[in-house]
């Protein structure tokens, strides 16, 4: 593997055996997960933490189909990933052979590109192209399906030469004309707002973003994917916008006269009602993917290019601004409508997150599952550096966080890693506890246990008259579960136990599962009901 | 009658006679869950991962012969179903899957939890629908059940956008449905049936090769009758197991890759191969030119595309296996074939299925003991790997449909949720799960579902600390270069049971197991038995890759 791959996450099987046999001699670290979904999410987490493409490997049939959710997840969140699957021998293709699945057909809608290799001489070129496509432009997953007779074939390795893909040429630099228009609009604006997404993190543009914000004294709101792309403790930081954004971020969107969207995609969870998003604002949209521009929301000044490159081109065209009434108004909103919760004696999930922040000094890598805890993790932990918040944004995959944390810990062996989980999500890929223990990865899992599929319950409470259909959970004993896997387990029921338990978890060099018995019917607030404009918040 | 589409969906399911739905809620499917809650007539089994829901519904269908029904949300909920759908597709299992989808206005915009599940599942469903017109929902559901359960059964998926689910319609459920592109043929062609019957009477060395179609078509009675009239030995595919009594003298066991030598020899030497509801899969035929080289082939199958797909067929008959066999039986007369049966008897004696009995707990012995203690009267769900083949070889199934296992896709992780589904479908039967330490972990979260539903499953983990089947392949084809197959760490399954509030035992030898089994099998609740089996055991015999099925080796 000439691509500088040092780690592969995978699970062997018949059709992929020749590749596993080659791995036996290769200088590549292989992490054996306990379900292929775990391998895909771990590779995804590894990629998000390290910035390098994540690689996962699985066999044909169920091995390949088990990757599907992980591939879709990486696709929605633009994560560079190369998935390699074994396939039945070429002669058996199309005959419903044992463990045959048409994985290139299946993954057509959820990969940036995919290949089935039918000639051994194409293999080297295909691999090189796959890594190129996965990691350049708007990153994404690429799948290579390799029939067993191809991977078992002999081949004199030849350098496949430079990549030539006439249909794939991402635009990196912006045109001067668009930059000048943008600069003029920015300098003319009185109430500018920067709305930053995951593209900032992907392109490594966090320094440029900070420069831009400080130069313009422009407040910055981020998407879930953009958390960590702008320092969470910066005075210009507004937190997250959208359905579960801060009130002040959403008010700022509604009253801004200029929105600079940087590597973000106006997702429905962010924009609320598309045609009422930032009603009074000129919108500048910088994105590597031209198809994102104008997809959901009208854009006045589109700029296609790599966010970091574009910001570097744009900055010299701008001049420093001074604070005005706009910044005062923002400060007023922040004072008036802080993100907060009520203490009532029981263990509050928000407090758990805040304590994790305190105990780790804000330096942990946080992954999350999907649900209420994910939103609390977004609100109550302060992310100060990119790639420190790793979460399933677009697909919203329950079960992502734990295997992702394993991938993150493999990429960052010396850092503290926390998976913030719910009692529903953590069960989805609980088998990966074996992987964590197997490889001695000291991942910490904080289960915010309310005995419910909490987010769904919250919707049922708010929109379905509290008819809790199939959302109450009968859970295993998570402490004993951890112990059965040879990991450490702790239960926390009171505020006073929080800090000592967390300190012990961080010290322990085994995987640790913390079972926090939290307030059962706590809601994530504020909330914009689905389909409503951003200023129609409840809570 | 006016109602919301979501309510109409639930009403349609009630009218289809659906009693159980396996599922997991989420944002986009909430309207349907709300309607389900309000109706209260259908039981819902809340799983812990959507993969568990499909496998459970799949096994429910296998165990009861009814259509399995699954509900999941959009995005990851839908993609988590993919493996289970592919599994049901490969094994021809009738399923109807209802997935939530984002609102129609957001379809195609990469919105939150949006995924093109109809596109994704095109290759692995019998048919699928994205319903955009609220008025069409009832007829689409009718079609879905019709397509899933008739002809060659299979999974049908219906993707229901959230806004469509919340529309109000005037509800009327169509009594029948006609689809101009879908008309399965049930009765075989008369002249072909006569031709086949003629060959059967003429043949000297016939073998019946019966697959899963026998079970799907409920033709096990006809199979027994035909075998006895013709004095023809019967071999089953893996999917066909339990379709013929395991202790019958005409039974040859399974054929193919890990089949018995006598079944493979019989097929190699037969002059007539009667293929019933089977599909000449690569694991069955081995080298295709070496398969039944001396035989004329009669192939009865409901799916015309299976006939002539992999091997040349002399008498093709498209139709429902049961109907065709009934027509054939009317033409057949009792025939004595003592020479052929004597030859078979000799092969059985010469090449019995066997294993070395000394040294540690042998996995084959665990299966034999299970069979003995239950007298073969249990529903056995398995996972995929060595243990699956040992069940196939050493458990003598007595009743149709009592083996529940993933054949075509070979899905590790199928077993536990399948056992859940089977037990829900057959609450009064003894349901045993035989699994491996690798497979069991894949869907282990469903233990919570089993506990939740108070299912008295008996779970036996054949724990050899490795991915045994892949390890076996590496032993033979990779010079014992074991890569990623020996687990350096396996959780303590007995303690894991404890975390779910279930008794767990670990056994290390046969005597312990013999002592424990009566108690375990008669206990009213769920039990997990962790069997520490000899890790060096291989599945034997085995037909090496690229060889004919008569060239099996012992290993």
């Amino acid at each position: 593997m000439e691509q500088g791959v040092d780690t592969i996450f995978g699970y062997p099987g018949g059709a992929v055996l020749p590749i596993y046999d080659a791995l036996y001699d290769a200088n590549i670290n292989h992490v054996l997960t306990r379900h292929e979904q775990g391998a895909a999410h771990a590779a995804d987490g590894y990629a998000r933490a390290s910035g390098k493409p994540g690689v996962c490997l699985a066999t044909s049939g169920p091995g390949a189909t088990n990757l599907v959710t992980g591939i879709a997840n990486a696709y929605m969140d633009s994560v560079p990933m190369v998935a390699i699957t074994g396939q039945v021998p070429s002669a058996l293709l199309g005959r419903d052979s044992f463990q045959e699945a048409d994985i290139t057909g299946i993954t057509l809608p959820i990969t940036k590109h995919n290949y089935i290799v039918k000639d051994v001489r194409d293999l080297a070129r295909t691999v090189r192209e796959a890594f190129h496509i996965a990691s350049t432009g708007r990153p994404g997953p690429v799948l290579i399906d390799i029939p067993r007779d191809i991977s078992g074939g002999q081949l004199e390795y030849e350098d496949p030469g430079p990549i030539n893909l006439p249909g794939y040429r991402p635009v990196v630099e912006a045109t001067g004309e668009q930059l000048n228009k943008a600069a003029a609009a920015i300098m003319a604006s009185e109430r500018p707002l920067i709305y930053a997404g995951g593209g900032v993190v992907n392109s490594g543009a966090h320094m440029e973003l900070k420069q831009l914000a400080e130069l313009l004294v422009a407040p910055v709101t981020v998407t879930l994917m953009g958390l960590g792309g702008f320092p969470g403790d910066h005075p210009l930081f507004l937190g997250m916008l959208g359905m579960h954004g801060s009130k002040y971020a959403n008010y700022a969107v509604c009253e801004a006269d200029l929105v600079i969207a940087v590597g973000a995609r106006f997702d429905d969870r962010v924009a609320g009602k598309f045609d009422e998003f930032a009603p009074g604002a000129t919108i500048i949209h910088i994105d590597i993917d031209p198809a994102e521009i104008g997809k959901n929301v009208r854009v006045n000044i589109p700029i296609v290019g790599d966010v970091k490159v574009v910001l570097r081109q744009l900055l010299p065209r701008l001049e420093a601004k001074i604070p005005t009434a706009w910044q005062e108004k923002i400060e007023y909103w922040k004072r008036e409508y802080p993100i907060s919760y009520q203490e009532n004696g029981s263990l509050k999930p928000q407090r758990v997150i805040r304590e994790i922040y305190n105990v780790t000094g804000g330096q942990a890598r946080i992954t999350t599952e999907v649900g209420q805890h994910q939103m609390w993790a977004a609100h109550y932990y302060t992310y100060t550096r990119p790639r420190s918040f790793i979460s399933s944004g677009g697909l919203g995959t329950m079960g992502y966080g734990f295997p992702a944390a394993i991938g993150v810990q493999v990429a960052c062996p010396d850092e503290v890693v926390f998976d913030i989980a719910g009692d529903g999500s953590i069960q989805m890929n609980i088998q990966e506890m074996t992987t964590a223990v197997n490889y001695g990865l000291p991942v910490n899992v904080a289960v915010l246990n309310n005995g419910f599929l909490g987010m769904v319950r919250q919707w049922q409470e708010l929109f379905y008259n509290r008819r809790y259909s199939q959302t109450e959970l009968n859970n295993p004993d998570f402490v004993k579960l951890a112990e059965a896997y040879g990991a450490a387990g702790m239960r926390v029921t009171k505020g006073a136990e929080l800090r000592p338990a967390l300190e012990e978890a961080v010290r322990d060099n085994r995987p640790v599962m913390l079972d926090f018995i939290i307030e059962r019917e706590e809601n994530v607030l504020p909330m914009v009901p689905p389909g409503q404009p951003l200023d129609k918040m409840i809570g | 009658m006016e109602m919301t589409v979501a309510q109409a969906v639930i009403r349609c399911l009630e009218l289809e006679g659906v009693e159980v739905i396996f599922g997991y809620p989420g944002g986009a499917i909430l309207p349907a869950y709300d309607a389900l809650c309000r109706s209260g007539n259908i039981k819902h089994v809340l799983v812990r991962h959507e993969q568990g829901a499909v496998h459970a519904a799949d096994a429910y269908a296998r165990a009861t012969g009814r259509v399995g029904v699954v509900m999941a949300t959009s995005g990851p909920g839908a993609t988590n179903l993919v493996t289970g759908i592919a599994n049901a597709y490969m094994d021809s299992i009738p399923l109807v899957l209802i997935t939530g989808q984002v609102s129609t206005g957001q379809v195609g915009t990469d919105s939150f939890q949006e995924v093109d599940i109809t596109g994704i599942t095109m290759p692995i469903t019998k048919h699928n629908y994205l319903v955009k017109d609220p008025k069409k929902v009832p007829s689409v559901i009718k079609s879905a059940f019709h397509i899933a359960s008739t002809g060659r059964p299979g999974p049908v998926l219906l993707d229901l956008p959230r806004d469509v689910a919340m529309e109000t319609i005037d509800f009327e459920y169509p009594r029948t449905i006609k689809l101009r592109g879908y008309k399965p043929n049930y009765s075989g062609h008369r002249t072909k049936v006569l031709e086949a019957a003629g060959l059967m009477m003429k043949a000297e060395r016939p073998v019946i090769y019966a697959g899963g179609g026998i079970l799907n078509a409920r033709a096990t009675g006809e199979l027994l009758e035909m075998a006895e009239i013709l004095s023809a030995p019967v071999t089953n595919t893996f999917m066909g197991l339990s379709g013929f009594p395991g202790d019958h003298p005409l039974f040859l066991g399974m054929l193919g890759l890990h089949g018995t030598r006598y079944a493979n020899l019989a097929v190699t030497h037969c002059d007539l191969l009667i293929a019933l509801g089977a599909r000449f899969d690569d694991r069955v035929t081995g080298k295709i030119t070496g398969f039944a080289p001396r035989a004329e082939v009669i192939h009865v199958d409901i799916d015309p595309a299976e006939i002539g797909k992999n091997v040349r067929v002399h008498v093709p008959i498209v139709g429902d296996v049961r109907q065709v066999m009934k027509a054939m039986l009317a033409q057949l007369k009792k025939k004595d074939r003592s020479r052929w049966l004597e030859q078979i008897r000799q092969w059985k004696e010469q090449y019995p299925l066997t294993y070395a009995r000394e040294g540690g707990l042998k996995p084959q012995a665990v299966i034999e003991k299970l069979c003995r203690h239950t007298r073969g009267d249990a529903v056995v769900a398995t996972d995929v790997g060595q243990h699956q083949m040992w069940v196939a070889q050493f458990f003598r199934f007595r009743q149709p449909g009592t083996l529940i296992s993933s054949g075509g896709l070979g899905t590790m992780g199928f077993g536990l949720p399948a056992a859940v589904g089977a037990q829900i479908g057959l609450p009064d039967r003894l349901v045993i799960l035989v699994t491996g330490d690798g497979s069991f972990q894949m869907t282990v979260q469903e233990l919570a579902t089993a506990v939740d539903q108070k299912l008295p499953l008996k779970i036996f983990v054949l724990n050899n600390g490795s991915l045994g089947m892949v390890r076996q392949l590496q032993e033979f084809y990779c010079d014992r270069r074991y890569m990623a197959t020996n687990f350096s760490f396996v959780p303590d399954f007995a303690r894991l049971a404890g975390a779910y509030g279930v008794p767990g035992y670990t056994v290390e030898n046969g005597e312990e197991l013999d002592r424990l089994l009566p108690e375990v099998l008669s206990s009213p609740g769920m039990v997990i038995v962790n069997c520490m089996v000899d890790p060096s055991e291989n599945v034997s015999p085995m037909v090496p890759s690229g060889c004919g099925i008569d060239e099996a080796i012992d290993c």
Partner: protein
Amino acid sequence: MRHTLAVLVENNPGVLARVAGLFSRRGFNIDSLAVGRAERPDVSRMTIVVEGDDRVLEQVTKQLHKLVDVIKINDITPEEYVDRELVLIKVSCDPARRGEVMQVADVFRARIVDLGRKTVTVECTGNEAKVSAFEESLRPYGIKELVRTGKIAMLRGNRFTALDDKKDDD
């Protein structure tokens, strides 16, 4: 051997993807596939040209039949049928040589549909052999751009591949 299939399908979104996906998944080789609306709005007609022996053809037909949206398949290869293809060819051509190109076009009863300063675009319809011969004849002039529709076909005389209304549509 090449076979021409006349296929009637439901006019549903995604039906083309279902057919194309089937061919790719099963490893069948499509020479060409043309699709459009048929004589009634709820039905589309596809003309598919496939390469393969009788065994392959049999599988193609049977597998296509398994698609619920496929209503009817006719292998019209052995029958009498009319088939047509349309090609647009843009040739680079100085005004001085226009006459030559026009003459070639005339021979094939092709029509000039666009004239540029340095290009001529011609349209030609006919069966596959004619269209191919036309393409070859223009090749020496330098073909800048070429697009073919793929073959469409219809049985001759009083024979139909249409829906049998009584049988298929009740």
